[in-house]
């Protein structure tokens, strides 16, 4: 298993190298190049030359890349152009907020998605299945930012139960306050993901129900409840782990829209602020961190999958 993990990590390296080079090189694609990014487009030539020499932009690009990558590997992404704070510090502040939101959203998605999928898969094509499949389609089709606005209108504007703008409060510090702040953004994301999970789990449950071992169990006279709960469910949940993991990985940066609706201080909103203020060191740092987290979670999911399903060989 360790060898497998190491091999997978080694396979990640080329993609990471290509992607990191693309992220590094993006400032060179900006009109005026990296120096204009720092001194502004209207700087005098002397100013530009001075800054290039001082910051080492007059060296060959590849040398600069190796230098940048070396520092990034030690967690040094440079200073934010806007706030003059270390990029790593800014990211470190936002990461827990994003993880907390992602976790709550996944829990809500599981709480809605699994019962929906099981109820529709037990009797495919029944009226209940049609209603629940319609729910999944709706959950998938409604844009999260519109759903978020509707939830704010209902719970914050009309009922005045929950705040319309969410703050980040650590769950362990003040659980109730944290849940009040998290409720709407987590519900918005959770409903969307429940659509993904519900549709996927329904298909794999129906697929498993046709398997030979289910027919054997029925022939032996195993009670239906036991067949569904023990035999089918266990096998159908295997691929499900992958989807849950993928969603989790997606949330690290992909919750940016939901974070914007609720002005939640997550990593995605940091990136949006960085893009609107053209803060390139911050953009590069955010994307690199999101990319690495995304790849690591994917790896963890594959390992977990191989661990819970002994039929899969580590090759």
């Amino acid at each position, binding site marked *: 298993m360790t060898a497998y993990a190491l091999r997978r990590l080694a396979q990640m390296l080329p*993609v990471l190298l*290509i*992607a990191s080079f*693309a992220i590094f090189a*993006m400032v060179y*694609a*900006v*009109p005026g190049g990296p120096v204009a990014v720092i001194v502004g487009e209207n700087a005098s030539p002397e100013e530009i030359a001075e800054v290039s020499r001082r910051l080492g932009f007059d060296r060959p690009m590849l040398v600069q890349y190796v230098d940048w990558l070396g520092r990034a590997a030690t967690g040094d992404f440079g200073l934010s152009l806007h706030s003059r704070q270390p990029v790593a510090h800014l990211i470190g502040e936002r990461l827990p907020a994003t993880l907390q939101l992602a976790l709550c959203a996944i829990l809500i998605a599981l709480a809605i998605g699994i019962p929906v999928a099981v109820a529709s898969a037990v009797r495919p094509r029944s009226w209940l299945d049609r209603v629940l499949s319609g729910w999944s*389609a*709706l959950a*998938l*089709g*409604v*844009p999260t*930012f*519109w759903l978020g*606005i*509707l939830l*704010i*209108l209902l719970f*914050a*504007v009309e009922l005045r139960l929950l705040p*319309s703008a969410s703050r980040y409060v650590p769950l362990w510090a003040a659980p109730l306050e944290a849940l009040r702040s998290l409720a709407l953004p987590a519900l918005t994301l959770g409903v969307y993901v429940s659509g993904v999970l519900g549709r996927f789990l329904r298909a794999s449950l129906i697929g498993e129900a046709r398997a030979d071992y289910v027919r054997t169990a029925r022939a032996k006279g195993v009670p239906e409840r036991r067949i569904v709960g023990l035999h089918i469910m266990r096998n159908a949940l295997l691929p499900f782990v992958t989807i849950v993991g993928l969603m989790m990985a*997606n949330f690290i*940066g*992909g919750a*940016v*829209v939901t974070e*914007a*609706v609720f002005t939640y201080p997550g990593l995605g909103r940091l*990136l*949006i602020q960085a*893009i*609107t203020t*053209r803060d*390139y060191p911050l*953009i590069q740092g955010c*994307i690199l961190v*999101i*990319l690495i987290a*995304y*790849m690591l979670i994917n790896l963890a999911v594959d390992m977990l999958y191989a661990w819970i399903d002994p039929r899969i060989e580590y090759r």
Partner: protein
Amino acid sequence: MSEALRSLGKLLRRLAGRRGPALGLAFLALVASAATFAGVLPLDPLAQSIADSLKPPSAESWFGTDELGRDILARVVYGARTSLVTACGAVLIAGLIGIPVGLVAGFYGDWRDSLLMRCVDVLLALPNVLFAMTLIAVLGRSQAAALIAVGVAGIPGFARIARAQVMALRQLDFVTAVRSFGGGPGYLMFRTILPNILSPLVVQAIVLASIAILLEAALAFLGVGVPPPTPSWGEMLRTGKSYLYEAPTYAVLPGLVLTLTILSLDTIGRALTALLDHDEAGMPAEAAGGRR
């Protein structure tokens, strides 16, 4: 080719016979014709009148007015133009790059396959929104940048489907027959195989159109999409969100039109997929006839 188009028409007629997809088609037709003939309608998306700002829906302005007193319905209609132009442009960009990439990768299946598909994988290394945002960070904010970002994000979908389809067809008799008559790789890929995989590609185009409209709206909502004053549904949701207390319908109605458009495309896409899966058994016969 015309045979393929005719079978597509047949598919459309079968769709129209079912309730969900028929409703979807009708709504899309309404949105598309509103977008196309927006200039003929008595609607001005840019006319401001501060005295009439943030009015609720009324007989004169069905959707109410925005913070500058502009007619929201007019902006929704012109916003449909932005959405549809982005959707069509994105499908075109993604298709023109993605389909040839998938064809070549699946047809040869050697180092060309590995190389091309690794490049496609790099595009998948980030979620759609982030990828588009990164491209816009480099290109600057403009309508063209939004369109390119959404289009490039759609390349992997086309490439993967085209590749899988080619791999399924390349060993079939009708391909071998054309090969034995001396058909070269280009002829085989684009004249022999491509016409026979049009149906799944059309389904993918519909799926992508829905993703593109959503992505364009999301980018505008985040403030990095099509720049103002061009009307965009996402931009309207973004501004409307600031006036939830004063004018709740401002953000709700454009969002409703956006949601119905996406749901319509999704319903049609899923119904088409189901029909195609159903027809799978009869496909080789249709495929053989669809060549000319």
